């Protein structure tokens, strides 16, 4: 699914400031696009606009256009157009009508009216692919934050969407689950899905994103290859954060381009030490 935004501006009710203030953007399938920026930069609002949820559900105003495969996203319910949106607070997105995690994952296919055996097969595959099969009989309200997040991704996966719009999908995950979701996002893109992820953590997205977009006050400040941008000063200048190693290197006064991985920084530090020694 191809997204095209033209002169997109979005504002919330009562707010004078435009949360998204003039964005032209094309997002192609087969890649993972990573949105980042300081608090209030507009990444969440852009995701909501791409999913057709802002302003229809959030209130406020939108000007300009957002097309998904040449259809304006404003009028449609995302899931029925093959768009899977995951919001920032997991617990609020549990359907509330499923007795077990298994039924929770089946909610999407159920609502789309797919044949029963298709629903059950898609549910089984999704549970297995997210590694949450062992939770199948648990009550959806009795899960930890991380488990809830993985179950929600499985629920969206069960509808086999063409596009993924994910807002902070790693926020509650432990290390093992983070690695599993990183791998899944790469696989989904490779299978031809369009994947857009808003995430505050550069280290998590470094090996997942093909394209990095840094937003500032509702506009796109940077758009390029993550590995180049993260090593440069541009990310910090745009108010966003680079990887842990690059930020440490910057605080140590190193000039750009700086090492962005922990191992590279250690090599630099120890080699520097032996040269001097």
């Amino acid at each position: 699914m191809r997204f095209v935004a033209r002169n997109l501006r979005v504002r919330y009710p009562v707010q004078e400031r435009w949360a998204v203030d003039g964005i032209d953007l094309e997002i192609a399938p087969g890649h993972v696009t990573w949105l980042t920026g300081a608090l209030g930069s507009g990444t969440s609002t852009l995701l909501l606009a791409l999913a057709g949820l802002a302003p229809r559900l959030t209130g406020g105003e939108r000007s300009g256009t957002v097309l998904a495969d040449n259809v304006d996203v404003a009028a449609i319910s995302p899931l029925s157009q093959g768009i899977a949106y995951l919001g920032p607070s997991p617990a609020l997105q549990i359907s509330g009508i499923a007795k077990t995690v298994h039924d929770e994952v089946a909610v999407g296919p159920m609502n789309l009216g797919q044949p029963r055996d298709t629903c059950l097969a898609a549910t089984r595959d999704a549970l297995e692919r997210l590694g949450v099969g062992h939770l199948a009989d648990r009550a959806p309200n009795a899960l930890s934050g991380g488990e809830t997040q993985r179950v929600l991704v499985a629920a969206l996966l069960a509808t086999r969407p063409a596009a993924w719009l994910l807002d902070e999908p790693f926020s509650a995950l432990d290390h093992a689950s983070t690695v599993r979701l990183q791998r899944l996002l790469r696989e989904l893109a490779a299978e031809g899905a369009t994947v857009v992820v808003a995430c505050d953590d550069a280290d998590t997205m470094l090996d997942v994103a093909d394209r990095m977009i840094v937003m500032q006050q509702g506009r796109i400040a940077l758009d390029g290859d993550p590995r180049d941008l993260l090593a440069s000063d541009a990310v910090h200048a745009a108010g966003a954060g680079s990887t842990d190693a690059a930020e440490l290197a910057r605080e140590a006064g190193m000039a750009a381009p700086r090492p962005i991985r922990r191992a590279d920084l250690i090599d630099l530090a120890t080699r520097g030490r032996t040269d001097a020694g």
Partner: protein
Amino acid sequence: MNHTLRISPRLFALVPAAVAINLVVGTIVKELSLPVFLDTVGTVLVAVLAGWRAGALVGTVSQLLLGLLTGYQYLPFVVIQWLLALLASLAGNRRGYAAVWRTVVWGIGAGACCGAVSSVISYYLFGGITGGGVSWVVTGLRSLGASQPMAVFAGSSSTDILDKGIVIVVVGFVLRALPRRILGRFPMAARAVGK
């Protein structure tokens, strides 16, 4: 409730939350063993924020749920929820929540109306008995020689004025302390507090 009645997603989210508020606030008050019910805060809140129809819907679903917990013998009192939703919404349109004294006035008015209607219901359907605090008041008045209708009316409306009155005053405090974000999403709330 059929397909034609296009209920917005916001109402589908607000109604369950408001019914939950009715039940849970009622439980909190019972746990604090305070002498009131306060089990209609959700109904009044939604009636002000989204109109009396939404408030009535919250009241109706609350009554259906209550029936599952305590039995459907009190189902006829769902009429009180509709009346309260109407009055709460009316108060909202007339800036009734703009100040404490206004909520007290509207609270007493709404309590008296609800009391009157509930006494009619309990008189004809239950002979003035509804169980719970109000009935002991009624029995006391009867034994003092008050006539049956008089006792039932006085008993019901006095407890309802106290209960519904406090609910409207409480909702007044909440509405006046709402963040801009919620006031922006519910224009009727802004009018109710006179902003």
